[in-house]
């Protein structure tokens, strides 16, 4: 955290904008209430957001890492605190601790093909990486973004896809259920891996989505020859303290908040097969 307080004390921010992205999902733009200095983060990191009177939850940062004046988070309204967060209005306060956790290692992909695979709201933690890839596009060979969603109206950030394409990203999209207006692919996101046109031996993959989607996608990448230690995934567990003290987010030998949320698939693949974890 660059705001000067210890990691257990929330810093006061205020909501500057909130908007609906897709059903049940909103983006929240916040900025420090006082002139507390710039906020910097690495793509893939998260903040603990505190809605006073409701609770505190971990939310990935989904905005552009270049922008240090405001922070954007994308929130799906699925529980008491997240719902309260989506009901905040401009000017209202929110507590922030962070940024926490490991990040998407863009350096690993220098000179290589990049495969970014997002399932549903998993695109949110990947968007800062996409911004970084666009800004530093010359550092990478091909950059391909594969997106899977339940339905066309559940495609997150769809208004930005054309800009991303014009900025040098190849984008392939599939949905599980199509309506009559949809003329794209129908089927699971794993199917897109085979036609991504990557050189598997020279590819770094970044995968985020529900855990089951991560497992199937990583398996598909490996089927085509992408090495397990060249696949990076982002995991979720019940995070409370954010600094590896409370143990709520333990996954085998790891604390997701401190050792993750971004892991090499080679690190986590066996742990993900254990139902009890």
């Amino acid at each position, binding site marked *: 955290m660059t705001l000067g307080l210890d990691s257990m004390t929330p810093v006061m921010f205020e909501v500057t904008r909130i908007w609906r992205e897709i059903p049940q999902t909103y983006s929240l733009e916040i900025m420090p209430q006082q002139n507390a200095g710039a906020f910097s983060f690495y793509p893939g990191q998260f903040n603990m957001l505190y809605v006073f009177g409701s609770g505190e*939850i971990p939310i990935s940062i989904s905005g552009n890492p270049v922008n240090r004046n405001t922070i954007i988070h994308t929130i799906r309204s699925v529980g008491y605190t997240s719902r309260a967060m989506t009901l905040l209005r401009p000017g209202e306060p929110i507590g922030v601790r962070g940024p926490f956790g490991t990040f998407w290692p863009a350096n690993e992909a220098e000179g290589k093909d990049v495969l970014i695979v997002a399932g549903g709201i998993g695109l949110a933690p990947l968007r800062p990486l996409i911004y970084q890839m666009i800004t530093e596009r010359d550092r990478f060979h091909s950059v391909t973004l594969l997106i899977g969603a339940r339905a066309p109206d559940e495609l997150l950030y769809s208004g930005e896809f054309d800009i991303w394409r014009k900025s040098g990203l190849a984008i392939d999209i599939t949905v599980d259920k199509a309506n009559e207006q949809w003329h794209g692919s129908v089927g699971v996101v794993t199917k897109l891996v085979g036609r991504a046109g990557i050189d598997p031996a020279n590819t770094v993959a970044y995968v985020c989505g529900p855990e089951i989607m991560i497992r199937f996608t990583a398996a598909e990448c490996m089927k085509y020859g992408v090495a397990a230690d060249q696949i990076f995934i982002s995991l979720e567990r019940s995070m409370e303290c954010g600094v590896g003290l409370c143990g709520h987010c333990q996954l085998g030998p790891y604390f997701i908040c401190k050792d993750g949320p971004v892991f090499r698939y080679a690190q986590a693949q066996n742990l993900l097969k254990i139902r009890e974890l």
Partner: protein
Amino acid sequence: MSISIEILKQQLLFRDMDIRLVEVIAEKAVFKSFKAGTYIIREGEPADAFYIITRGKAALEMNGRQHTVVIQTVDTGEALGWSWLVAPFEWTFSARAAEPTELIAIDGAYLRKQCDCNPLLGYELLRRIVDVLSSRLQAARVQLLDIYSPPEYHRQNVKRGVK
């Protein structure tokens, strides 16, 4: 228009297949093209051909209770339809060209007969088709899991204690 052995060999399904077997398949293989929106095959009609998409995309449709549902799209390089191999040799779904689409169409009755007469061809072809079927079955299973749905996400997170 008949199809050369070289073009068939370029297809993923026939790659590395013995040239003599490809020659047999090429005997009754022709190109077909369909405009966007037109039906390539229709549910319930005789399954008379085995298709491989060489350009474009087909949407597989099944008739639901009140409307037609697109269950999957099949893309360039992929095989389309195996009902020509399974009695009663009727299509179990429809396929519509999602965009201008070109396909290799191989006579289904001819292929069945050749497979009956030539076990090596039968085995090689079935082995490759089973691989396609296995991938499609796995994809359908994953699709059934509804892996992006908010309720699933909610259940997972409630279990994990996320508020």
